[in-house]
């Protein structure tokens, strides 16, 4: 069996005295796409930041390629896992290409400048996110969806093996939602792994290998996509009844 990219044992995510999930055993294998679902305020972002090593687990162990974050240097960890934060806040101007190049930081020595190779990687990340031709544009002039894709391009340029994405489909139109999900699927074919927070149940059902559902009350269900979606957990988590339909061999979930 191959070493999982990321594994948690008995992980508890908590903020102050609020516990978001208890005793979570999560395994992210190479090439897997895992969707994290849950109601607002269920702790999805907090969990993702914990998985990214930005905050220590309240209880339990967290291993990135078999080692805890404390045993990783910042740069080495950044070459292994990348995080897309939920919001991009820009206080100072810079170009789309410059913003994409920040992903190359962990690959560069302290005194090295971005090389032609780094530029090439950044440019192909821009092409993959449909931003070719925009590289000289100011990020302050971009639309919300374009800005989101620049952030994704920076993450692609980072070339991590594990992508932790906090609502990567935010602000994206239908076409780019599908294009980005196809891109993520393509990344899994290179044995990279994706953990993404999302809200669309049907897209999660279609693309995810596994689903992690946080119910907002401290418990989490983790399993194959169909299992989690078809259990009653989903109704309980969102506090809203759902009905499933079968269309063209796929299950579709609609709120009642």
């Amino acid at each position: 069996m191959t070493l999982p990219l990321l594994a948690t044992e008995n992980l508890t995510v908590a903020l102050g005295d609020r516990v978001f999930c208890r005793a979570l055993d999560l395994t992210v294998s190479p090439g897997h796409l895992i969707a994290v679902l849950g109601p607002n305020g269920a702790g999805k972002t907090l969990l993702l930041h914990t998985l990214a090593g930005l905050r220590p687990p309240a209880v339990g162990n967290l291993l990135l390629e078999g080692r805890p974050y404390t045993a990783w240097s910042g740069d080495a960890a950044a070459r292994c896992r990348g995080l897309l934060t939920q919001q991009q806040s820009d206080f100072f101007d810079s170009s789309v290409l410059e913003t994409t190049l920040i992903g190359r930081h962990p690959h560069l020595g302290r005194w090295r400048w971005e090389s032609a190779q780094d530029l090439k990687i950044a440019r192909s990340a821009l092409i993959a996110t449909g931003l070719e031709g925009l590289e000289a544009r100011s990020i302050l002039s971009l639309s919300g969806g374009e800005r989101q894709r620049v952030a994704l391009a920076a993450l692609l340029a980072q070339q991590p093996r594990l992508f932790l994405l906090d609502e990567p489909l935010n602000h994206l139109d239908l076409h780019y939602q599908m294009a980005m999900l196809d891109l993520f699927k393509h990344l899994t074919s290179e044995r990279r792994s994706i953990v993404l927070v999302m809200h669309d149940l049907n897209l999660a059902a279609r693309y995810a290998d596994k689903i992690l559902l946080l119910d907002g009350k401290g418990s989490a269900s983790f399993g194959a996509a169909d299992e989690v979606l078809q259990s009653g957990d989903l109704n309980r988590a969102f506090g809203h009844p759902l009905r499933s339909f079968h269309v063209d061999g796929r299950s579709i979930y609609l709120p009642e």
Partner: protein
Amino acid sequence: MPSRRRALLILTALLTLAFLSIGLALSVGSLPIGFGDVLAVLLRQETPGAEIVRLLRLPRALLGFACGGLLAFAGTLMQVLLRNPLADPYVLGVSGGASIGALAAILLGFSGLGIDTLAFGGALATLLLVFGLAHGDGSWTQTRLLLTGVIVAAGCGAIVALLLAIAPEQQLRGMLFWLMGDLSNPGESGFTLGVLALCLVFALPFARELNLLSRGTDTARALGVAVSRLHRLIYFLAAVATAVAVSQAGAIGFVGLIVPHLVRLVTGNDQRLLLPASVLAGGSLLVIADTLARSIAAPQQLPVGVLTALIGVPVFLLLLGRHPR
């Protein structure tokens, strides 16, 4: 990201500007001295006016350059740290504390080194107060730090006003000059230049990490930056730079706020270029402003802080207008 060649080109141009501004400062004054003679004095030849250049104009020009550089340096760092384009070196109340110290020293009849020392002590005391009150880490503390700094600065402002109100007439003018920035007492130009050099030496290795910090702390940490360690280092450097500059030259406004923006309009926001370019531009601006301040209405000396603004504002507006959005 500017190419390395473009970066070197910009820095060379600014370095030339720095040398020209210092040359101008050495040459202009009640006794005009030609560039050739200035050069001769610097090469240790005895020419008429050598004493004036060596003992008066050179220390003053170097101090002006160092203070301008320190303020621009601190301003650049503060804007990145607080992720706020309106941040300046004084945003944490440093100038307020230094002002109290300096004015108290003037009231007590101190001069020269005494004023510098009390000003530095005041700056340090406010910094400790602000950092102590806003203890902690994370984005919440950034806001808290900013608010604490603004409140402490406001408190210091009140005390400064009080000191001015109770000051005897004959000391008032010196106090007002100190508040607006004054280079006429160039005590420790070598020391100040040394502090500037040290600040750059410690900050430049982290320039690319600062670029990431300006994108947000979470993003920076996910890209491998040890954010809290970097925060501590940069706050420390910015605070020391400001405290030294203020204690040497008074609360010179404008340089620390506008020079980073001005340079950013030309170089972009890459700290690897922005930091050294701001230092050179801030230093040059202050030297030129001081030269004008002591020569326009000679023998009357004008406060240099007024001149930095009078030169900087039109230059900034011109660049802003030309900048394609």
